[in-house]
């Protein structure tokens, strides 16, 4: 027994007391284990038979860059198609017209219920069942019309529309019905109410999952390689069948996918900020602003209880 304890509780003056925080031994053990595991992985890769020079060389190789550009292009096109068609389907599903809402439901049922890979192959081989396209004003051989790009666009975009429709529907339904009533009471018609009042508020709910869909699409577009669309994965795959550096080429491809998804994650952050307008009392600072703030005030950064140490 120490002397202090023998003194009894009341003999220590309150201001002399210090609080001792709980020690988290479990955290130290957990962190140590994870670091050890990570080190093992790094060691394994450092000693693996990877030709890092090949990875570096091919990172900016023409065909790879073209592939990345095509991946980006088909992703943007398919997402735009999916977004527009998805919005339309969402409005149809919410419509009072039973035919419109059933058709929208049927569309979603079919396109969500079959694998996108199957849909891609179906579009690409459409000439087996229709050898000509005849739209009245436009007539051509199906084989000339259905290029890998168009097949990829239709396969990915129409599939995406089914998912976007559900996301948009959830967004539209999340807007309080009082908003529609207020707009109608002011004499706005249904279209204006939707465009000016409901959709801008629905966007807050729609954007986060849409960003997710976009990033998914960047990766799912690699499936279009099976219908000979020259996107990123196909570029890497083709090269690897010549230089036999399969793992190296897949690493090159992965780096590019990571780069694309990272850039879009950042874009999504700013888009969400824009549509959060009016929902919070104050907008949080952007990461850039936060960084700048930290750099300019780093001297007073370490604070304890409001006092500079």
């Amino acid at each position, binding site marked *: 027994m120490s002397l202090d304890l023998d003194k009894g509780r009341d003999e220590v003056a309150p201001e002399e007391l210090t609080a001792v925080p709980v020690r988290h031994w479990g955290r130290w053990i957990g962190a140590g284990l994870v670091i050890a595991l990570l080190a093992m992985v790094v060691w394994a890769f450092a000693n693996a038979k990877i030709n890092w020079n090949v990875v570096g060389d091919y990172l900016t190789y023409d065909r790879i860059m073209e592939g990345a550009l095509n991946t980006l292009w088909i992703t943007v096109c398919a997402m735009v198609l999916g977004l527009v068609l998805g919005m339309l389907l969402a409005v149809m599903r919410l419509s009072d017209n039973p035919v419109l809402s059933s058709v929208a439901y049927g569309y979603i049922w079919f396109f969500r219920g079959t694998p996108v890979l199957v849909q891609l192959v179906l579009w690409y081989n459409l000439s087996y069942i229709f050898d000509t396209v005849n739209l009245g004003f436009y007539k051509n051989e199906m084989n000339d019309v259905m290029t890998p790009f168009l097949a990829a666009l239709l396969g990915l975009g129409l599939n995406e529309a089914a998912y976007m429709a559900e996301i948009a529907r959830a967004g539209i339904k999340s807007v309080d019905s009082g908003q529609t009533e*207020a707009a109608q*009471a*002011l*004499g*706005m018609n249904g279209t204006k109410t939707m465009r000016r009042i409901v959709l*801008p508020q629905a966007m807050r709910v729609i954007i986060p999952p849409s960003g997710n869909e976009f990033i998914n699409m960047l990766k799912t577009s690699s499936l279009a390689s099976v219908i000979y669309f020259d996107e990123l994965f196909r570029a890497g795959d083709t090269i690897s069948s010549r230089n036999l550096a399969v793992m190296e080429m897949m690493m090159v491809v992965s780096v590019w996918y990571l780069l694309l998804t990272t850039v879009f994650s950042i874009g999504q952050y700013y888009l969400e900020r824009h549509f959060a307008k*009016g929902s919070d009392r104050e907008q949080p600072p952007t990461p850039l602003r936060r960084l700048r703030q930290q750099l300019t005030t780093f001297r007073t950064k370490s604070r304890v209880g409001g006092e500079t140490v």
Partner: protein
Amino acid sequence: MSDTDDTPMVKAERVHKSFGAVEVLKGIDLQVRRGEVFCVVGPSGSGKSTFLRCINHLEKINAGRLYVDGELVGYRQRGNKLYEMREREVAAQRRDIGMVFQRFNLFPHMTAAENVMEAPVQVKGLPKAEARERAEELLERVGLGDRADHYPAQLSGGQQQRVAIARALAMDPKLMLFDEPTSALDPELVGEVLDVMRALAEDGMTMIVVTHEMGFAREVGDSLVFMDEGVVVESGHPREVLTNPRHERTKAFLSKVL
């Protein structure tokens, strides 16, 4: 129709409204004169809010006739049938009727000024600069000239409701509907909204006010109806009805709220 003619601003004849099997309005008859403040009181579920919402066709009536300024609301009569109007025609009728909601229903993604500008710009096609100027005037009028660029989330309940009143006034309505405008407010914020409404009444605006504020009804109201279970139980001058209720149901209700 000029302000001097004596067609009532609102006239209801045997107005019926049902939600499914539940009959909410069981034949409402009443008249609202031009320039008067018409108060509607009654217990919740009495149909008073529903009746108010029928006046600008947010709810469709099932039978009877409802006129605003001599025109049938939302329907056209041919023979013994009422034909519902198209959306465009209903929207046109609503332009002249302002409405203030219990829960404000301001557009949260727009600033106070943008809320007020929205309908004049989108519906009437007013140039933005002109609408902005007018919005600032109206916000000044409800005592919020310095809050024009605040978003609703940055305003108190009382301030939001005053913006909502300015938004309704921006369309130069001939009739204003108030659906329990102070029921969602903290007690200390009720006064500022009632002050704005009082000033509006003094300017001669025709107002129909569904309210639980008996003090306001007594001071500002020109007429009052007490509704219960979908019918008008009693009507008359507010002071008379509130101090000397004749009907048992009115007495029972007033003894609880006064």
